[in-house]
């Protein structure tokens, strides 16, 4: 199939992009085009105008600012994989990036596009939630910052308002004592995952951010992670893990199919086992 007709603009600066978006309800942002391209071709998306944001330098910046890394929305998976941007995750993000899709997709696909598309099985959607990232949203008239859990509101749904785009992603520095585990189950190399878990666990301070992705809905950030470990997160968390609690949480999250639950549970278990 071929796309329905659309206009195309490739502004050089953010304010032009924002005014194009603000001035036309039928305008749509395009970053790497790796998800939008197929949607255009299948005519699932029929925007009046495409606003290509990949010529905007500001959106390609990456810098450490204080205790966080700020990545422009148009930083690509390959930029992260290749170490062309700074890292505050002690290598976690680099290895995640290297296993997204295929290299050709990583060359173009962007971190901002990935989040905005809000595929519940996308890597960054779960990983950045576990890392405690926040996103800056910009429109002609406003700028706001939201947490990732606030940003992703459902499968393929973000809190982006008309005229708004993701400008930057803020990733807090990973504490030296935190363990990181990330496991995904894919049918084959480069496929979207059908089971996915990202876990950032800091036994020293008793905190855990555990995200289960690849569900039919938005990824789940486990609200009371200590329950998984008999009430507290400490150095013994791996051995204290209680699969029955995880099973109940998955059930509550809507995973009612026993086979799917088993796969998600296995992925969760392994992410915790592998955390280091």
């Amino acid at each position, binding site marked *: *199939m*071929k*796309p*329905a*007709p659309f206009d195309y603009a490739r502004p050089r600066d953010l304010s032009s992009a924002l005014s194009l978006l603000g001035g036309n309800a039928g305008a749509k942002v395009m970053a790497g085009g790796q998800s939008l391209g*197929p949607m255009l071709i*299948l*005519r699932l998306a029929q925007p009046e105008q495409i606003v290509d944001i990949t010529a905007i330098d500001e959106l390609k910046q990456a810098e450490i600012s204080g205790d966080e890394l700020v990545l422009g929305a148009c930083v690509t998976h390959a930029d992260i994989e290749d170490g062309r941007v700074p890292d505050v995750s002690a290598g976690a993000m680099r290895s995640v990036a290297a296993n997204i899709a295929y290299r050709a997709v990583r060359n173009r696909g962007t971190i901002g596009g990935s989040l905005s598309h809000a595929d519940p099985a996308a890597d960054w959607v779960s990983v950045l939630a576990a890392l405690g990232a926040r996103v800056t949203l910009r429109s002609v008239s406003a700028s706001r910052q939201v947490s990732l859990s606030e940003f992703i509101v459902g499968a393929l749904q973000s809190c982006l308002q008309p005229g708004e785009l993701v400008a930057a992603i803020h990733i807090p520095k990973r504490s030296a004592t935190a363990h990181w585990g990330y496991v995904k*189950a894919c*049918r*084959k*190399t*480069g*496929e*979207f995952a*059908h*089971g996915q878990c990202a876990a950032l666990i800091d036994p020293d301070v008793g905190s855990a951010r555990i995200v289960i992705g690849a569900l039919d809905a938005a990824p789940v950030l486990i609200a009371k992670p200590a329950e998984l470990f008999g009430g507290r997160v400490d150095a013994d968390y791996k051995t204290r893990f209680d699969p029955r609690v995880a099973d109940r949480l998955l059930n509550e999250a809507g995973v009612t199919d*026993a*086979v*799917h639950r*088993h*796969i998600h549970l*296995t*992925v969760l278990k392994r992410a915790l086992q592998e955390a280091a």
Partner: protein
Amino acid sequence: MHGRIDQHQASGQGVGARLPRKEDDRLMRGRGQYVADIRLAGMQDVAFVRSPLAHARIRGIHVPEAYRDRVFTAADLVGVNPIRAVSGLPGFKISEQPVLATDKVRQVGELIAMCVAPTRAEAEDIAAAVVLDLEELPAVHDMLQARAPDAPLVHEHWGDNIFLETNFEVDISAALDAPIKVSREITTARQCMAPLEGRGVVASFDHRLDQLVVTTSAQMPHINRNGLAECLGMDQGRIRVISPDVGGGFGHKGILLPEEVCLSWLTMRLGHPVRWIEDRREHLIASANCREHHYKITLYADRDGKLRGIDCEATVDSGAYSSYPFSACLEAAQVASILPGPYVMPAYRCRTFSVATNKCPILPYRGVARTGVCFALELMLDLVAAEAGLEPSEVRLRNLVQPDQMPFDNITNKHFDSGDYPEAMRRALEAIDVEALRARQRRGEPDGRRIGLGVSIYCEQAAHGTSVYSGWGIPMVPGHEQATARLTPDGGLELRVGVHSHGQSMETTLAQVAHEMLGIDVGNVRIILGDTAMTPYSTGTWGSRCAVMAGGAVATACGDLGDRIKRIGAKLLQQDVADVELIDAEVRGPNGSVTLREIAHTWYRRPQDLPKDVDPGGLDVTSGYKPQRDSGTFSYAAHAAVVAVDPDLGAVEILDYVIVEDGGVLINPMVVDGQIFGGLAQGIGTALYEEMPFDGAGQPLATTFADYLLPGPTEVPAPRLDHMETPAPYTRFGVKGIGEGGAIAPPAAIANAVNDALRRCGAELMRSPITPHRVVEAVIAAQGAGRAAA
């Protein structure tokens, strides 16, 4: 004959040489020319309005006023006949497939209207503006439900949904008291063939020749011409079908498409060239479906694992229409004739049903019915082995036809021509080192995965001819295969053959055959194929027949040409023809030699030097070939797979894969390796990934490659290959057909390996593909059963 083979093998170009592919220079530099590369002046693009429903009555098709002259429906196609692919088998029910739907649509994606515009995107805009008024009817998408008496009817006037039912029996009652009896239901998923290039058509009209020219991505161009002539009611001489470079066929490109008929009509109506290039969504939704089988099968055996008989009821989901030329029954009816596999048994019964459903027609796919049959039979043999307490391979060795029985007429009267089946199995086992593997299995894996070994073996009838196909009574019966061999005035060789090459390397292997016969350098051989105006009639590429049939035809034509060359050469040398030889592209006599180039030059440019009694046929010969016996060659292979299964995630990794294959004398072993690699990749797809699911309303659910999974480079291991070369007794050079074989045995070997890995936890999978979900489901079910039993 043999002396000659040895001699030209020594030159490194004849039969048996691992010659690099001649066509690669063009194809690997991106200079191939496919349908979508063709640009004709004034050409416009076509997009189709397709049915969004699986089953519906058409109440109206509303075309916006602005597009009245851009949109065409069945009402416009006056005089165009529906596609009819009738089988002569008794009881076959005829389906008529209108090229654009008339009163009803019977599958999602069925063509309803064609829209034409300067670009495809604009044509799609028009298609999107056409409004359909459809009355949805209950759809039947499950072949077993379709057999039920109260099922919705795909073709009302039939009274049921059965294209054809067949019965075959040899003394099944004699098996019923066997001490071992295992029964199962086994299913292979509906798949979609996925050549790199989809279908595509450019149609134009040549007024000078008063000829419709249809350029189409097809593997059987002469058959397409037959079908087009029937549907359009035109003389064959007014139709030329050209198949340019074709990016993979696999059976998908052997079918006459309604799109081909539509575009042929359209170019004649509009007076300018039109084209339609199938996109991947159309391809997945509305074309290329294949493989969907269901078996209710029982094996009977003695305690020592010796087969006493097989009893089976096989159902094939044939889809809505009988496809041209193979018909809706070829798949199921073949199941009955090939289910006994390479084994000896005294009793057998098989009942088959070709069932119509509201899905697209099932098409023959590399291996055709064999992949499903091998899956069913080989999975069942592992169960016999378990009952008999034997290694699965041992059960095979005890039941395979033995070499001293060859040639062997099996229980369905297949004439196995030659070979040593047990030896292939033994070599595969040796390559694996079964004992070490069993020991490793007992030790267990450090990562908790489970290791399994699976074997499978098949024999494949190939290049079967008139005596076999006349019985099916379908629109296509192969006879003699012909080739034209023509020496050009400068001593080059042109070969014209009616089969096509779309990955099988015919341009190389046929040149090798010509070299074998004439000693001519393969660089001086041009192969012309894929054009009804330039090549002799042929049924084309199917049934692993090209090397045997076109190879035989080229050898015959070159042999005849060689005789004429020798006679002219002898005259020029002033020798008796009995005293000269044709060697290394020259005619040699006791006192000198004359080259092909000199002989050609004489015939064309200096006829004054020719003897008065020269054969007026000249240096241009068309000859025909058929093997001495046309019941087919029987290549065979043993496959062994070692897998690791993650019982909690259901992931299957192939750790090792061994293939021991016998394709008779190999014209080019490297080409054969390539065919087997490609077939294996497709077999792995069948085993683990590929599935075209449907929802309850008959909607296909895998409409992009995000949902229809194909194995990629990381999923296909490099197999270890071993060739046996038992010359076929009835064919030229002893060649056997092997093109499809690689895709036949992998699903069975891999499934057996997975079941072997999971046996200790009691899980069993009897369905392809083996997905993570199915593995985990089976493991959980087995645990549940274990708990219940405890």
